[in-house]
């Protein structure tokens, strides 16, 4: 068992990615060929990476290897442990789906765009992600990290003719560089203590960290990884950048690139900095709650389908952080078992969110692909022309709303359980935080459900609202296959959770020295229990089966009843007006109106209504309505900062005003000052 060729297969997948990058760059003159090379090699790399991850997880014992480079401390060293395996597996699942999806998706690029360059960036993205998740060397990590950011920038600005796209891209890359700066400082601090650039050395050096150093390092890393993960208030780049990218890329960005931030937090907070004090964990928890609630609240106000999904990424990152924060608190409070459960909740939600968010973005992508618009107000009725896409999107929607029996529910359930346990596990007033966080999580879940009722219903149900949605066709087969694969994983992870959970044992053992997988499973392997003595129990499998079985009496009832009178189709009730048309339909804006009113404190909504009339205002011919909400963080935080900086810079330009006398004066004054004050010892 312990002679699985993990390293070899992993290396093979790396080569697949890198050769794919070069090959697609080389063949950019032949779009069709290039397309096949691009997607094929990506798929191959994904499959190999997945194999390596599965083997690595089965094997349990970490695999290490290292290749030296010319530069001191900078070695190409990899450490394939459970954590790396987990994230690589997630990456592989997504990469596979996306590369299948892209077979047809990229077809529209042919002749219009440079597929070769796209493929190059696409492969580099996958490659850098793999490296980030696997490397054990700070330099290599930072290189992978920044390459990831730069490549993502290239992909976000792929449609760079559009001004909004360019702005979004720049916002993204600037934020990314800020987080890279924070990480640079953090790692420099750790390397200063440990004297080595290997992650393993931090583990041992953590003991020598003074509490001050530890706090500084924690803050730096939380900033760095938090910006990358898009937590509130560092999220502003996310809803700008993710929607404008090509949809298959948006899927990867939201699905896995954000998770790089989570990966970093888990790797450093649980492994690199020693036992963090509980305030750190609580900070993570609180930030998580804020991100979750605010993220979903902002999502509700969107009617750009992809922006809506982007905001939901913020929400889900928040949920993940809640679990992570709980784990940190439990660890320092001396409840490693609970910590393990909380960590599993966080990690499982990471996996789930990766999958259903990728699925949803791909679905949005095929909607965009066939209708050409992201604006939900112009969509509608797509369930008839594109049934498969609709079904996949629906599954994704149910899953992301955390509704049983799908995977989203399981991870949220585990989060609830750990929060519930947190009340007993901690003392003082902090214990209230846990149930409060729980209730906020409930709010988040319900709002998410509302939001996805809106997203799905407005996009796919009832009548088309705009001309774009009228004459559309189902997405090509390969795109459907890509989505279908993710749909199946969603269902499998939901219903068969009890078979997958023990795989986390290696992870929790590596990070916390606990194996709780077995405690989590009971009732003939059907039931998921919270691992505590009492705790709670749930079984998505039974719920699923129950729903199916109980369907029988219901169907019988109806079929018996409807035997005599036929069911017939008729027009919808339209208050006697002639014929229901799309004007009568509810819009996305109208749907979210009540919440906009209720949370107006946050939104500061602004609306203006203009009635066009010729005789009297009481008989308007047309009414123009527009409303917008205030982007609080941009307006209150970032824009003022930017303005201040630019103002200062413009002022500074006066010192370079072209007068040679002034220039000489600078030197002269410096000289005299130094002569007077510099010379004396």
């Amino acid at each position, binding site marked *: 068992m312990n002679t699985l060729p993990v390293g070899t297969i992993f290396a093979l997948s790396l080569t697949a990615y890198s050769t794919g990058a070069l090959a697609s760059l080389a063949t950019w003159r032949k779009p069709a060929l290039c397309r096949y090379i691009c997607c094929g090699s990506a798929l191959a790399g994904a499959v190999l990476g997945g194999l390596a991850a599965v083997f690595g997880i089965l094997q349990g014992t970490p695999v290490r290897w290292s290749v030296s480079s010319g530069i001191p401390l900078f070695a190409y060293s990899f450490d394939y442990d459970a954590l790396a395996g987990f994230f690589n597996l997630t990456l592989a699942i997504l990469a596979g789906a996306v590369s299948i999806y892209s077979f047809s998706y990229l077809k529209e690029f042919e002749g219009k765009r440079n597929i070769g360059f796209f493929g190059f960036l696409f492969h580099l993205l996958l490659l850098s992600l793999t490296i980030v998740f696997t490397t054990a060397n700070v330099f290599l990590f930072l290189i992978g990290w920044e390459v990831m950011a730069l490549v993502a920038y290239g992909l976000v600005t792929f449609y760079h003719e559009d001004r909004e796209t360019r702005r979004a891209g720049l916002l993204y890359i600037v934020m990314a560089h800020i987080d890279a700066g924070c990480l640079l400082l953090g790692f420099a601090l750790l390397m200063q203590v440990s004297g080595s650039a290997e992650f393993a050395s931090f583990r041992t050096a953590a003991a020598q960290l003074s509490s001050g150093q530890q706090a500084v390092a924690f803050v730096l890393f939380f900033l760095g990884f938090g910006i990358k993960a898009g937590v509130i208030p560092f999220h502003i780049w996310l809803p700008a950048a993710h929607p404008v990218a090509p949809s298959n890329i948006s899927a990867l960005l939201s699905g896995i690139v954000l998770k790089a931030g989570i990966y970093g937090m888990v790797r450093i907070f649980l492994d690199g900095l020693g036992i963090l004090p509980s305030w750190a964990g609580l900070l993570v928890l609180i930030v998580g709650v804020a991100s979750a609630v605010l993220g979903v609240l902002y999502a509700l106000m969107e009617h750009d389908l992809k922006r809506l999904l982007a905001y939901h990424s913020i929400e889900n990152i928040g949920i993940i952080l809640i679990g992570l924060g709980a784990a940190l608190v439990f660890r320092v409070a001396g409840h490693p078992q609970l910590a393990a459960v909380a960590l599993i909740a966080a990690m499982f939600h990471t996996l789930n969110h990766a999958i259903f968010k990728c699925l949803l973005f791909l679905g949005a992508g095929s909607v965009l692909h066939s209708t050409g618009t992201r604006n939900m107000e112009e969509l509608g009725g797509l369930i008839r022309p594109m049934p498969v896409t609709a079904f996949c999107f629906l599954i994704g929607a149910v899953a992301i709303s955390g509704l049983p029996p799908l995977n989203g*529910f399981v991870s949220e359930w585990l989060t609830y359980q750990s929060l519930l346990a947190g009340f*007993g596990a901690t003392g003082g007033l902090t214990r209230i935080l846990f149930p409060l966080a729980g209730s906020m999580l409930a709010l988040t879940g319900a709002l998410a459900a509302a939001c996805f009722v809106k997203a799905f219903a407005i996009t796919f149900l009832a009548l088309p609202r705009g001309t774009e949605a009228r004459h559309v066709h189902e997405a090509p087969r390969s795109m459907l296959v890509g989505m279908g694969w993710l749909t199946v994983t969603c269902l499998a992870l939901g219903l068969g959770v009890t078979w997958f959970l023990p795989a986390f044992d290696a992870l929790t053992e590596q990070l916390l020295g606990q194996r709780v997988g077995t405690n989590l499973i009971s009732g003939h392997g059907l*039931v998921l229990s919270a691992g505590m003595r009492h705790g709670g129990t749930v079984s998505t499998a039974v*719920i699923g089966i129950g729903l199916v079985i*109980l369907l029988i009496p*219901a169907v019988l009832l*109806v079929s018996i009843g409807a035997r005599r009178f036929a069911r017939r*189709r008729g027009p919808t009730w339209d208050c006697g007006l002639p014929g229901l048309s799309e004007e009568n*339909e509810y819009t996305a804006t109208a749907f979210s109106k009540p919440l906009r009113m209720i949370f107006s404190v946050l939104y500061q909504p602004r609306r203006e209504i203009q009635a066009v009339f010729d005789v009297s205002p009481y008989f308007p011919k047309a009414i123009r309505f527009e409303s917008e909400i205030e982007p609080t963080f941009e307006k209150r935080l970032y824009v003022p900062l930017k303005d201040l900086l630019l103002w200062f810079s413009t002022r500074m330009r006066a010192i370079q005003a072209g007068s040679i006398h002034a220039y000489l004066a600078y030197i002269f004054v410096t000289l005299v000052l130094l002569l007077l004050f510099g010379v004396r010892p």
Partner: protein
Amino acid sequence: MTGLLAKAGLQLVLLLLVAPFLSGIIKTLKARLQTRRGPDVLQSYRDIFKLLRKGMVIPDTASWIFSTTPYIVFVIAILVGLMIPMTTTDAPLSLFGGVLAVVYLLALGRFFLALGGLDTGSSFGGLGSSREMTISAIAEPAMMLAIFTVALGANSTNLSEMAKVAVSQSWKFLAPSQMLAFAALFIVLIAETGRIPVDNPATHLELTMIHEAMILEYSGPYLALIEWGASIKQLVLMTLLVNTFFPFGLSSDWTARGLGLGLIFYLTKMLLLAFLIVLVETTNAKLRLFRVPELLMVSFILGALALISTFLF
């Protein structure tokens, strides 16, 4: 296994029968309090029976979502019903889904109901779905806080566990935390079951209706399923309330005697709760939609107080 099935069957029958009866009772009591004759207790049965035998009209704009929704709603209501202890402490399926599962399953039902409402394309449906999702969303945190308070006492989210603990320590319901939690949950119950002052099940005026607007396009057997499901849901929530806070007479086993006793206790408790609801309905006017959040905020505060008082007292 067979035992499980038997219990499940028994409770299933109980659910299907008691639910319409309860809503009938509520209607009658309400009418009496308003000094009307009103429908008799069995009216709800007749309605369902009638609807089941009628034909139905399906809007031509609607898709398969519209027609699957009633089944989902009905089935979920039953499934949830099997998870909660009614007459005995151990519910048939309690092992497979605790209180969290109950809440989220109901949310799933609501999810599809809202989709069904929007699927017809009429603005009534949209209006209903929008309001329903909004109100349930802001009801959620209060509900979860109250539930947590109870669950913390029982140290479990498993309903049978909670019931057992409650039974073991009687008079616990006098603890302020329990009382506050009960108050919070009662408000949530009213919101969730769509009763005055939050919603008016008897109206069809588009300014006021919420639940009714969603299901406006349903007819015949589908409507029957939805109505029946709704009444079961109401029963479930009320049961949840009475049995977690006032667990008197919950038999700990499935013996005939225990069941009989438990049933009597159960029905009396339910009647009392129903009477309470009716009182509230008749003494209050329906709130404007945007006043509802304030009501639910009150319940949230109550929940928070309950939580704090758990380790103050």
